[in-house]
């Protein structure tokens, strides 16, 4: 591998590595606008100029690849600094000074670099700035708005639509200082990934209609999380202010979503605003729903569950693809305690959502993130057990002593009065979830749970990749993470059961499920881990038996 020296630091890189990437490996940031690791190299913003020994002019780092030994590059160099200042000046002369009302302020490449590499004065004092009249608010498509005055013509967005989304809606129009970005008549920027152009736009030219003016970015708390829109399992940065989620942005994971995510996924958090929140545990007493404490609610549930046998039938658990793997495992443990084979998961199938990545991409076909994880953890029907269809379409519910539905917004069926009526035929209906849906209203016992932003856990995506996500902020009101609630319920059956965190449950589960053998929660890699063998074949030992739990 060739060796390159950057600012006195020598490093070995693979042949063909460009200088921006090479410098980053030794902690040197070469400023750039048009360069993006996944887009073709055009070398046109001229911000990444560096000095290379033996070359007269400054060279663009993005288009210079290391092939031979002995290249000596200077980034911290007076000539380079002068070049960067020159380019910054050119970029700023016609850029509007509207940072106070610009949505990008605070995460703007132009702000950052003019602070780091620019000059503190302007020589462009008496000239009129170039403007694009009537082009301050052009809807390029349903999700993206263009303010041409702020554009620095880096063409990242154009190249994105050509090379990543492969839809080619955007193009350069006009030329010279009048060059502008635009769409062709009748062909709006309307593809599944369109909002990604907002993420890669270094300035405030492209803004998201969803996030625009929702919050100043410096007030946002940013936490790593996962998208729950489908089973691709896009890594996201969840950005919220005091527990109110403002937006999802894709978080780089080369094995899953790369730098991208779909427009649908970005809007999934709005579900948390669309449905009312289930605020406190409720128990039906004498036909009336009464708010009770968690302890009372769990006692009530325990009392219903521990009644065994007889003509009343057995308890059944209807899970969903929104359960974490750990929660699904605990539910299967509960089923084991009460000796029920009726364990199932219902997941709506959604439209296929394809997210490109360097390996080709992942297509998600479920409308929930974790069907595979829930099934892996044991939520599959045992011998003679009812599956989800029996409960939702057939009248299996009527044969159940207790029917536990988790969660209250498990899919479209959860809002269908006919389905609710069918589920209601169970002797006792227990509903858990974050949303106060009609289904939760119909329940005998309703328990408020944390949303995925408020809890820890793992999801298994369409490629059987197990990925961890963490709580972004505490649950509101009485809502609790399901793992905590389940621990208390399980402890009523088995006093020795103490696993009360996702980590503890995962480690317990890893000992029993062969596919997870050798894994521990704390050592799961940041980009996730692919599970083998495939969890579609039931691999959970012990859960197929109807043997009684130790505390029964």
């Amino acid at each position, binding site marked *: 591998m060739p060796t390159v020296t950057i600012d006195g630091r020598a490093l070995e890189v693979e042949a063909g590595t460009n200088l921006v990437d090479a410098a980053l490996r030794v902690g040197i940031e070469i400023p750039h606008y048009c360069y993006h690791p996944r887009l073709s*190299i*055009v*070398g*046109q*913003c*001229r*911000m990444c*100029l560096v000095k290379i020994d033996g070359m*007269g*002019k*400054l060279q*663009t780092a993005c*288009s210079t690849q290391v092939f031979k030994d002995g290249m000596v590059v200077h980034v911290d160099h007076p000539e380079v600094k*002068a*070049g960067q200042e*020159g*380019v910054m*000046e*050119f*970029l700023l*002369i*016609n850029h509007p000074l509207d940072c106070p009302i610009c949505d990008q302020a605070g995460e703007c490449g132009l702000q950052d670099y003019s602070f780091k590499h620019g000059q503190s004065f302007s*020589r*462009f004092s*008496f*000239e009129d700035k*170039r403007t694009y009249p009537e082009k301050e608010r052009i809807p390029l498509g349903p999700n993206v708005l263009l303010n041409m005055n702020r554009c*620095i*013509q880096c*063409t990242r967005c154009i190249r994105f639509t050509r090379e990543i989304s492969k839809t080619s809606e955007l*193009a*350069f129009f*006009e*030329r*010279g*200082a*009048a*060059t502008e970005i635009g769409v062709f008549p009748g062909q709006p920027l309307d593809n599944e990934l369109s909002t990604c152009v907002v993420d890669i736009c270094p300035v405030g030219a492209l803004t998201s209609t969803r996030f625009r003016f929702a919050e100043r970015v410096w007030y946002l708390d940013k936490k790593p999380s996962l998208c729950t829109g489908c089973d691709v399992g896009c890594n996201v940065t969840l950005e919220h202010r005091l527990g109110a989620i403002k937006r999802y942005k894709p978080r780089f994971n080369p094995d899953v979503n790369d730098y991208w995510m779909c427009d649908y996924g970005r809007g999934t958090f709005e579900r948390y605003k669309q449905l009312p929140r289930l605020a406190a545990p409720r128990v039906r007493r004498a036909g009336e729903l009464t708010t009770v404490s968690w302890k009372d609610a769990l006692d009530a549930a325990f009392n219903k569950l521990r009644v065994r046998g007889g003509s009343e039938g057995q308890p059944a658990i209807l899970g969903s693809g929104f359960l974490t793997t750990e929660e699904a495992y605990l539910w299967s443990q509960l089923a084991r305690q009460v000796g029920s084979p009726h364990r199932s998961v219902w997941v709506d199938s959604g439209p296929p959502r394809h997210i490109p990545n360097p390996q080709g991409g992942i297509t998600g076909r479920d409308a929930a993130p974790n069907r595979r994880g829930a099934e892996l953890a044991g939520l599959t029907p045992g011998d003679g057990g009812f599956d989800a269809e029996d409960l939702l379409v057939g009248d299996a519910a009527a044969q159940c002593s207790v029917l536990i539905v988790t969660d209250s917004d498990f899919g479209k069926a959860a809002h269908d009065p006919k389905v609710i009526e069918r589920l209601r035929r169970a002797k006792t209906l227990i509903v858990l979830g974050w949303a106060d849906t009609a289904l939760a209203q119909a329940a005998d016992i309703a328990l408020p749970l944390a949303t995925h932003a408020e809890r820890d856990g793992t999801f298994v995506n369409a490629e059987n990749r197990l990925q961890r996500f963490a709580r972004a902020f505490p649950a509101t009101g009485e809502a609790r993470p399901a793992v905590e609630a389940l621990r208390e319920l399980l402890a009523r059956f088995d006093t020795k059961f103490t696993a009360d965190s996702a980590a503890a449950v995962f480690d317990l589960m890893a000992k029993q499920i062969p596919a997870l053998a050798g894994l521990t929660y704390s050592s799961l890699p940041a980009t996730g881990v692919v599970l083998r063998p495939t969890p579609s074949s039931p691999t959970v030992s012990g859960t197929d038996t109807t043997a009684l739990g130790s505390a029964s």
Partner: protein
Amino acid sequence: MKFEPVLLKNINNPAVLTVKGYRDAGGYAGLAQSLKLEPDAITEEVKKSGLRGRGGAGFPCGMKWSFIPKGGNKPKYLVCNADESEPGTFKDRLLMERDPHSLIEGCAICCYAVGASTCYIYIRGEYTYAADVLEAALRDAYDAGILGHNVMGSGFKLDMYVHRGAGAYICGEETGMLESLEGKRGQPRVKPPFPAVVGAFGCPTVINNVETLCNVQHIVTRGAEWFKSIGTDERNTGPKLYAVSGHVERPGTYELPMGVTLQELIDICGGMYKGRELKAFIPGGASAPMLPATMRGIKMDFDTLAKAGSMLGSAAVMILDETTCMVRAAARLAKFFAHESCGQCTPCREGTNWAAIVLGRIEKGHGLATDMDLMLRMTQNMSGTTICALSDAAVGPARSVVVNFREEVEQHIKEQRCPLPQQRFFGNGAAN
């Protein structure tokens, strides 16, 4: 000066528009002779002749051909750059309109030498008449068996097409031209890779100017030694077309040996317009920095002009007399480059526009005391920092007016008006 024309010998003979007439005038002898030679021998001969590209950069032609990889699975292309859009240049047009077969012959020899079997003549969109003439000549050449599956019975296959541009100066830049040829927006590519390796449609491509290719047949028939005998020295050889415009009595295209002095050129053009004094001249098209009258004895060849801080470029010589306002001339040129910048590189997109604004306001009498300094620093930031040479070209006139005609610029700023009576040479209110 007595000089037997080589390139322009047929232009007053309308018969050469047909293959027959061209053959009668001695044409296609170079191609016939070439087809009997080894391809490499032709490249070697062109190398020996010292022929340098006539499009502007002056790159040695034979060396360019030798960069084309030998063999390989990919097809090779010749693209003839007939996008003559440098302001002041009108030499290729004359060749194409009056002697199209000499270009076809030059292209065919080049294709044979580098192993290309397809040639595109990328012609400036506004040259509709020249395009028509070339199209007709191509049909004629196909009918006569000079192009097609069996070039002059040699078994060599060659197809030639005329491709019309859509009217952008930047498509005269070779990679911008390739983009345009491929049907994309005409904007230059990042180099490397150079067109000799990755050119048109991703294949090795030679790009040569019309005048360059028209020289090739004569090198083949008369030999490199003859070619070298014309010109200043070893590195500046051959006959050269000078397109003279501006304040001379008889502007036009003149064929002269490389390295004629400016004064000789003016004399050949009948002297200065109305006998006025020479003030400045642009030796090589709009991109070349302006030189003052004191340099009238300079030899008009590649190296001498480069040493003087300008360039031969396309040899479009613009003569400016004493009545010319240099600021106005520079402002007009700056406006041209601002209009023609493709807009991809930051320094060019923003800088050409800014230079046009600043020169425009100086010309109008609104210049600021800091403007000359601003021009120098701004042009410094624009030169050598972009993908193609358009930015450097724009720097040429903008910088040279401040360097070479500082007093006149100062006078504009101090007096807040143009010190010269307004001339209409560049048109009314053209610079703003």
